[in-house]
């Protein structure tokens, strides 16, 4: 457990404050920028904005979660970090669990907060905002897991970062369908399904990402 906390502390430090891997605020600013651009692109038609705004926030959240993808696994692979951890009997699975949690902590809480001003920018009402917030709360762990999984799978590949972003998008479709879908039905069923899909991703990611790192060893 103390190993886990040490890893988590390091990962969080690098993802949040690390000067090299930088900018915690970047995904959040990106999220807000998309929300801000949207009314410019579709015009100030309030009913249209109100109907589609929630979905736009979801897409913005998905894209924001993809931003730090290339910093998640690849740099540590180049450092030989996972080799050194393995020699100390610390499994890749444990390292990936810590990484997943750190990734989620580094973007999701800030994103949930930023959704409040963003909701004003796209002009959705309080009830819709609540559904978006609950949906994001249920969906962002899945996005974080997906990010770590894909980052581990593409680490070491040439052009892995671009490929990773491309791979996350189709895999995130179920989250988006259920999460953003809950907006039109206004229901808890969509959020529950989002949470279920998140849970599946969170459960398999440490093992799949750990296996990817082991097989990437050469």
């Amino acid at each position, binding site marked *: 457990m103390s190993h886990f906390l*040490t890893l988590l502390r390091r990962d969080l430090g690098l993802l949040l404050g690390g000067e090299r891997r930088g900018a915690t605020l970047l995904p959040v600013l990106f999220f807000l920028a998309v929300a801000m651009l949207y009314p410019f692109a579709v015009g100030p038609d309030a009913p249209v904005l109100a109907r589609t705004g929630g979905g736009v926030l979801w897409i913005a959240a998905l894209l924001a979660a993809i931003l730090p993808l290339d910093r998640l696994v690849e740099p540590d692979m180049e450092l030989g970090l996972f080799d*050194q951890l393995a020699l*100390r009997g610390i499994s890749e699975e444990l390292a990936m669990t810590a990484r997943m949690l750190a990734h989620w902590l580094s973007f999701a809480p800030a994103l949930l907060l930023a959704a409040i001003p963003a909701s004003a920018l796209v002009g959705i009402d309080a009830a819709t905002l609540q559904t978006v917030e609950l949906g994001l709360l249920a969906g962002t762990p899945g996005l974080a897991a997906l990010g770590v999984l894909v980052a581990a799978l593409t680490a070491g590949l040439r052009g892995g970062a671009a490929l990773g972003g491309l791979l996350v998008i189709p895999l995130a479709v179920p989250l988006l369908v259920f999460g953003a879908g809950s907006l039109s039905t206004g229901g808890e069923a969509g959020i529950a399904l989002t949470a279920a899909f998140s849970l599946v991703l969170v459960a398999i990611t440490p093992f799949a990402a750990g296996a990817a790192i082991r097989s990437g060893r050469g």
Partner: protein
Amino acid sequence: MQACRLTANNLACQRGERLLFRGLGLELRSGQALQVKGANGIGKSSLIRILAGLLRPLVGDVAREGSVGLLDERPALDPGLPLGQALAFWQRLDGPGDAELAQLGLSGLLEVPVRYLSTGQKKRAALARLLGQEAPIWLLDEPLNGLDTRGVALVEALVAQHCAQGGIALVASHQPIALPGGQAIDLADFTA
């Protein structure tokens, strides 16, 4: 230091289509050191990774008694962090060690971000990480790269000290290095 042992039997290693070496066996006991010589690309690093358990040999088996400390070309220290913090991460995992930073010539560099360190300084920092780990089996892959003559003498002294305390050191290097016992094998004798 507890008794340790490193044995390998009939190792063969294949990278891609190429068979690098075969029929390689070795046995090291507490206090012994061995240099693995050979030209670039002959498979020294692969051998080290096989012995560390990070790479599966094509055939053969490796047995280790005691934990392994690995020093290779990657220092595994976060480039963005000051050296002191980067080392502190490993110290939290390994427990308080007795790496003497002054002896390694690092005491004045603890506030410097790792990425600004020179090649030799990074190597010294990696040595500090290795010392802090207190692993009985040392696998050193080209430990002399980037070190000046004083650095070379330092590595030789550290290895001698480690072996005197009952540790094992296996050093892969194409450069001459003085090891206790002076044992050496040449990988060229095992090429396929």
